[in-house]
């Protein structure tokens, strides 16, 4: 059954209007990044750039050392956290998905609860702990809590993935004399790759965007990550520096954009199968 042509036309009109509204902030920030500074702060403002320049891109990429530093910090912190999450959630998810042991259900209930509790509850003790240990303002300062906070998510996805693998495969491997570790690394893990991809893209997006831990634990400008660093740049420059600022915003969204567009379906799967995130 297909709807009437006019109904469909109206739906397309509304959908296009909605799409425009959602895309407009991106378009505006891209336009701003391409206008010469004089045009950015002309009044009345121009909607479309009258002349196009790449000077702000050159400035941010080659002369703004703070920005490069923040980008590098974000890359290291996200990369190392992702690696640890990938390994420990594919190990832990295997245990939760395919083994029976005492305390398993309690553990699952606990990680579900964790997903619903706001981050700030953990932040105060973690701040006190890291102050005492002297690890604030370091890569470790964020990697450790990021791994812990995103693990419940990863464990949950990997548990479901491993549980879905048919037990005939496991039985056949055991008859062939696989050790437990071989069974996990050679048979199970390759079959769990889609789950692992989901875990990695979801945690990538969460960690690259994280703000509240980063702003609290990295007080020294040297260690800031992009979401905090860009706000810091804005506050340092005091007033309107939106010509360069919009470039910085665009460049820091670029990795997220590429990953999201390339792996959108995995992300969707993770959101729908995941649960609730605090």
């Amino acid at each position, binding site marked *: 059954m*297909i*709807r009437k042509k006019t109904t*469909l036309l109206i739906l397309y009109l509304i*959908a296009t209007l*909605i*799409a425009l509204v*959602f895309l407009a*902030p*991106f378009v*505006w*920030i891209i336009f*701003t990044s391409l206008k010469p500074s004089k045009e950015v702060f002309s*009044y009345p*403002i121009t*909607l479309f750039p009258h002349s196009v320049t790449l000077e702000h891109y050159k400035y941010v990429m080659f002369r703004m050392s703070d920005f490069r530093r923040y980008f590098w910090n974000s890359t290291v912190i996200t990369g190392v956290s992702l690696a640890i999450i990938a*390994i*420990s959630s594919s190990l*832990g998810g295997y*245990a939760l998905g395919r*083994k029976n*042991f005492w305390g398993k259900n309690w553990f699952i209930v*606990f990680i579900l609860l*964790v997903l*619903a*509790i*706001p*981050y*700030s*509850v953990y*932040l*105060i*003790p*973690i*701040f006190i*702990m890291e102050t005492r240990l002297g690890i604030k303002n370091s890569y470790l300062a964020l990697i450790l*809590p990021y791994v*812990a906070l995103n693990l419940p998510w990863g464990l949950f996805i990997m548990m479901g993935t491993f549980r879905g693998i048919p037990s005939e495969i496991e039985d056949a491997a055991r008859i062939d004399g696989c050790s437990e570790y071989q069974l996990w690394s050679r048979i199970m893990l390759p079959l769990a790759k889609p789950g692992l991809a989901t875990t990695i893209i979801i945690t990538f*997006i969460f960690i*690259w*965007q*994280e*703000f*509240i831990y980063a702003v*609290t634990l990295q007080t020294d400008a040297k260690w800031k990550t*992009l*979401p905090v660093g*860009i*706000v810091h740049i804005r506050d340092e420059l005091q007033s*309107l520096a939106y010509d360069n*600022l*919009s470039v910085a915003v665009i460049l820091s*969204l670029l990795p997220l954009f590429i990953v*999201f*567009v390339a792996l*959108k379906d995995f992300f*969707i799967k993770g*959101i*729908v199968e995941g*649960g*609730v995130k605090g």
Partner: protein
Amino acid sequence: MISSRTSSLRDSGIAYLFLAPAFLFIVVFIAYPLVYSFYLTFTEYDFVYDSAPKWVGLKQYISIWEDKVFMSSLKNTLVFALLYYVIVMFFSLLIAFIIDELTKGQTFYQLAVYLPIIVPLSLAGVIFVWILDPTFGVFNHILRSLGFKSLSNKNWLSDYSTALPSMVVITLWKYVGFNVIIFLAGIQSLGKSIIEAARVDGVSFFQEKFLVILPNIKAHLSMASLYSIVQAIKVFEVPYVTTGGGPGTATLTLYLYSWRTAFGYFKMGKAATIAYITAALIIFFSFLSNKFLEEKEK
């Protein structure tokens, strides 16, 4: 019997070994902080001056209600949450219904609505401060060219009446796509037969959506509702970046107030109490949501 018991014992041993790395992280950075900050709610602890927390019993839980700033941030959080929750649920449902109907180019429309998900809330704040700038902002420019003269001079983020609603709009922009993902998954998991049967009976667009589809995607409705409750109550980045909680305390939220109490004034006991009250609100509303939306059959 014995052999199966030893093998299951061996099995749990292996399971513990596999779970150990994740378990360690969760105990040190989640379970312990959860307990410790609960303990802190019964203490007074000035992190700069005190060497250790002082036990004060229920004092924090009692005195917090006399704190005017707390009361105003509680009110702001609830107003924000209500506005945000109602709009985000309705809007994303509507958008999902519309996108589902499109015969061509669905991917483009989906991507347009999903794209803001990748923007960190803090950067969404930075972008919108620029868009809403009273002089150089594009929003007022558009209002001017559409002829809304009186509105076009407004400073949206520093006006008492518009600051909080503006923050709702920024948060909506970021998260609507999130819920659309869930609703679309629900709608598209339905068998075609239900909808076709309804259409043969000649139901209208809205009857089909709200009377036929909606009752059949309760699980997805419940999931989106839980996500939205969390998003509606843990409001931090947007006020931090756009208004700083102002003007006055007009956009100060519980989350931001708890953070400031802890890391601006270093009153850890009080800050932990506010954080726990915020958590309690989320859990309370999630519980309500479950009660109303959970599938009753089984």
